[in-house]
């Protein structure tokens, strides 16, 4: 009899995780998709009027704040991509110049350990219009500089981008450094013998060799940008006006502040669609990588 049990216990051990996946993930996603087709307002309604099932989605695309959110998503994505560029430059320099490697790594990575609410609090204070960095710059005579970015709708997103880059550049540096370390060290001496310039060496040999690392970074960055919520709350609360709305913020705002469940669900479904659009390449990439490593083995 004990033999039987040992055959069944692995299956039984998977039951809790299976239930969680089935209920909290798959079930919940289907539930939200269903709600997005209804006219639910504060409380869920479960009747679908099939003649206008796309009503919430239509409303969404007529909503200025949602359109601003989508626009900001792209702006934030492009801006945060600087973190990858910056991360690569830092990694390349640390990798070439071994002196102080651990010190620099520690300094560049510490922002990653703290909450985005703390990061937001710090940068919100730096950007303070009366007492912040702007005041300092003006006091040394450069009165034409305006550095209180968060106070103006046109520049508020740049403030958010700066804080995000500050937070995450170290992470991309760590990934890039791991990528650089896996490159055969003889490439460097070979390139020196050939008289290849440093710039050419990086752009034509090293970066193409690291394309997997770059693609991984880009996908992780996109997923992070779609999820960006904390940093917006801490720095701008969506303002001034609605100038720093992003989809993650818009969706939660629609649910908690406006109490509009159907509408918020539609926005959440579109967030899922955007995530899937970014995520699909990742799945294909890992599948391809697995096949490649399988072939070389």
């Amino acid at each position, binding site marked *: 009899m*004990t033999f039987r049990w*040992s055959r069944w216990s*692995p299956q039984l*051990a*998977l039951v809790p*995780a*299976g239930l*969680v*996946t089935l209920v*909290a*993930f*798959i*079930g*919940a996603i289907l*539930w*939200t998709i269903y709600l997005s087709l209804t006219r639910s307002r504060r409380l*869920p309604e479960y009747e679908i009027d099939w003649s206008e099932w796309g009503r919430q989605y239509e409303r969404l695309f007529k909503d200025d704040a949602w359109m601003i959110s989508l626009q900001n998503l792209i702006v934030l994505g492009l801006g945060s991509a600087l973190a990858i560029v910056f991360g690569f430059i830092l990694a390349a*320099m640390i990798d070439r*110049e071994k002196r102080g490697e651990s010190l620099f790594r520690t*300094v*560049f*990575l*510490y922002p990653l*350990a*703290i*909450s985005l*609410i*703390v990061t937001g*609090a*710090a940068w919100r*204070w*730096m950007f*303070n219009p009366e007492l912040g960095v702007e005041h*300092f710059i003006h*006091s040394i005579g450069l009165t034409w500089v305006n550095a209180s970015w968060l106070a103006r709708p046109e520049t508020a997103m740049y403030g958010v981008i700066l804080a995000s880059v500050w937070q995450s550049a*170290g992470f991309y540096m*760590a990934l890039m450094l*791991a990528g650089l370390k896996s490159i055969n060290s*003889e490439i460097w*001496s*070979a390139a020196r*013998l*050939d008289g290849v310039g440093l710039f050419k060496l990086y752009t034509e040999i090293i970066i193409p060799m690291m394309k997997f690392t770059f693609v*991984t970074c880009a996908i*992780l960055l996109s*997923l992070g940008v779609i*999820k960006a919520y*904390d940093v917006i*709350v*801490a720095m701008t609360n969506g303002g001034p006006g609605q100038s720093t709305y992003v989809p993650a913020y818009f*969706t*939660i705002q629609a*649910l*908690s502040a406006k109490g509009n469940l159907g509408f918020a669900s539609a926005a*959440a*479904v579109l*967030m899922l669609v955007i*995530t899937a659009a970014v*995520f699909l390449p990742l*799945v294909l990439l890992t599948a391809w990588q697995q096949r490649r490593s399988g072939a070389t083995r």
Partner: protein
Amino acid sequence: MNDMTASHKALGAEIAVRSAPYFPRKKKVITGRSIAVIVFLSICALFFCVPLYVVIVTSFKTMDQIREGAMFALPNVWTLEAWDHAWNSACSGTRCEGLKVGFWNSVAILIPSLILSIGLSIVTGYALALWNVKWAGPFLFILFICAFVPFQIIMFPLISMTASLKVYGSIWGVAIIHAILAMPVLTLIFRNYYKDIPQEIMSAAVMDSGSFWKIFFEIILPMSGNILIVVLILQITSVWNDYLIGVTFGGMGGQPMTVNLANLITISTGTVRYNDNMAAALLTAIPPLVIYFFVGKLFVQGITAGAIKG
């Protein structure tokens, strides 16, 4: 391309051997280029340190000095007043009992969420990696997808479920949601770690009349020290730093520290006490920073494992 690098390799090695006696110690030379690199890196390091510096000095200043506007100046008088204020009497919403409330809430959330999430995912990862279970492949694939699902799409259903289980708006609600959301990633991390265990060990253990649980507790758990520490650090920092789950599921009574901090800094009425805000920010940041400075390497391992899952 491959041939080229191979020949370069050989050539490089040859040159290295030949030139070795002539330049016995050329490592010591500091070139102009490496000075430039170090200067550049130092400037970048400065950029990374400036916000921390500003936050620290502000938290020790008096409001009178802050109003003078010299953001980068050191405090005239170092005072712990703001720290005391932030810990004991800062307002979060309508309650003015300081961040200590949130601190203890965060601790109370952390402990059950760690036990639940790690307990659930280590067993799942072990079963998926080392036992022949049905549908292991599809299940792993679904977990992989779940790890990337945006929180917003499952938010309302989870609120309804926790409300009907009567845990919504409490520490338990937050802890359970943390455990659920961490499960896919942690399971994948454990599974990736266990799948490298040689099959021979498992066959020997099974032969030795080892049952599923016996093997787990007597063989697998004792050799999981490294991965457990990495996962523990990953979970501690991510639960501690979380805001979204805390604010959504904490209600009034179960708000973690980050929610208190966010309420404090986004307050728009009355005079803002920036020194309190910065002291509160530091208080929130200290636990993860301590972990980072002591076991930074494991922290980075956890973060990268959590992000790419091998």
